[in-house]
């Protein structure tokens, strides 16, 4: 990567403008950084073992149940003494709910959703009707 068009594409993706005169220099520096990141290719992890870690846990300590929730997500029950982490790939399977709309309560400034009244977002800093300030 990192030729002229790749950098332009990356700039467009990141919504950043770079002077034409600086494109070459930026490209070289990014190339240098990415080559440094490629050092991780030397890191040989036993991928198979890593991927099977979830399945290989003994049945006695991990059970799976299917919940009746609308999402039908799997729920994992684990004994207290074992620390269990989700596989990395499973962290990215969330789906955006396009139908979700928000209503604002003018009295409390709280925001709730139309399909689940349990969701209430309380924003602390308002100015002219907008939430302001950097948030974590």
């Amino acid at each position: 990567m990192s030729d002229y068009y790749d950098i332009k594409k990356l700039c467009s993706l990141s919504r950043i403008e770079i002077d034409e005169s600086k494109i070459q220099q930026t490209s070289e520096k990014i190339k240098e950084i990415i080559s440094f990141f490629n050092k991780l290719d030397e890191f040989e992890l036993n991928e198979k073992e890593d991927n099977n870690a979830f399945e290989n846990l003994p049945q006695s300590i991990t059970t799976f149940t299917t919940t009746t929730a609308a999402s039908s997500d799997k729920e994992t029950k684990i004994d207290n003494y074992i620390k269990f982490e989700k596989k990395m790939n499973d962290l990215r399977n969330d789906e955006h709910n396009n139908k979700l709309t928000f209503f604002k309560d003018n009295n409390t400034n709280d925001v709730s959703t139309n399909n689940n009244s349990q969701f209430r977002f309380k924003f602390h800093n308002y100015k002219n009707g907008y939430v302001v300030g950097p948030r974590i």
Partner: protein
Amino acid sequence: MSSDLFRLPGYIISGKIKNQEILAEDYINLVYDRINKIDVKINSFISKNYEAAIQKARKIDKKIKNNEKTGSMVGIPIGIKDNISVKGLKNTCASKILQGYESPYDATVIDRLKDQDAIIIGKLNMDEFGMGTTSEFSFYGEVHNPWNIDYVAGGSSGGSAAVVSSLQVPISLGSDTGGSIRCPSSFCSVIGMKPTYGTVSRFGLVSYSNSLEQIGPIAKTVTDIVLTLNAICGNDPNDNTTLNKQFEYKVNKIDEILSKNYNVGVLNNLIHNSEEQVAKTIYDKIDMLKENGFNVKDTSINYSDFALAAYYIIATAEASSNLSRFDNIRYGFDFDPEGYEWNSYSSHIRSNFGDEVKRRILVGSFVLSAGYYGKYYLKAQKIRNIIKSEFNRLFKFFDVLVLPTMPILPFKIGERGSAPLELYNLDIYTILANLAGIPAISIPAGFSKEGLPIGLQILSNEFNEQILLDIAIFFEQKDKFSEWNPVPL
């Protein structure tokens, strides 16, 4: 009133104000006189808070006169890194893109300091959005090292370290994403601490890489560090990553510390890679520990070669996401959108980021892009887990690990700015604590032949800050490093 009061640590000043030996208002005036005289050489302040500070000092004097209850940090002036929100003060993150932006609320740490009657003196210079190791990447100009103003102060909390080192204020707050508190503390010969991830609330800290960063104190004495930590740490409903845990740190007596027989691991493989003068100074400190009965053993950490690449992948990925909010709609300066469609307006505005910030955003977008996620980000997270396991292994045998804070001595301003990797490599010793989420402290260890400061870094297991403080107290008492001050100032 003695004009030498600025040499005293915060806790002594607080005692004098409480005992009505001095008035808080007089002391704050003295502090601003000192700042006006010294800071032209250092450039540590971006904005000052004179009016509000004087008002607060008057309130404190009135409280004391009326025998009302006061906080633990009464009358202590504190400088704040410019990425921590203080209501009514500019919060620029040393970036052109936030020029003129005024924070409408206080960060939790600021609320807590105000509750303890500390006085916010002003906002401090830094690398833009915390991205840098030298404090040269600031829209407001570079910070100069008080020990030699031709040299860098370290970064990214360069203003926070330099302001304490040059005796302008006794305590400051910084933020540490990959060593941003410890690096400048080492270069400026002060104490800087990064607490365990989740100990201090990040609400109100402008995020650069939220899974790595923590707010922490910088001071010249361990007592001031303890005082500040006790004020700012603890659970915060506004930051879900803070832990529901009680923290209380103490300044233990030296006999008590020595009786604990701490096991100290020396990270030899890392010390060997430092500059000769740095390594020698660190080994001198290790000899001091041995001579005083600490159980010192050599050890090493595996996979540290991969840690730096993993750190920069995670940090840039999170930066590209966090900084996407700066579109000049919610924050930023007055710029007429006439003639622009939305995307080009946004891109044009975002071109006001500095070169280093732009580079990190681009790299972050690249490593997260489809097809590269597994190659970079996923692998980096795996390495992060392995580094954490390595520390878990080591902390079964050792209470603390020691190594240099920085592998090299401070260098001249402009000497290393052009090659990003050259600067990234300097973070090799500090990023380990951020990846693992463990606490770390940098304390003054000595000086090179040229008179440039060298820092000793101490790491402990999560929530064992007290052990770090104990070891720091040991060195403070033996070396008297709190009395080391830059001569020209």
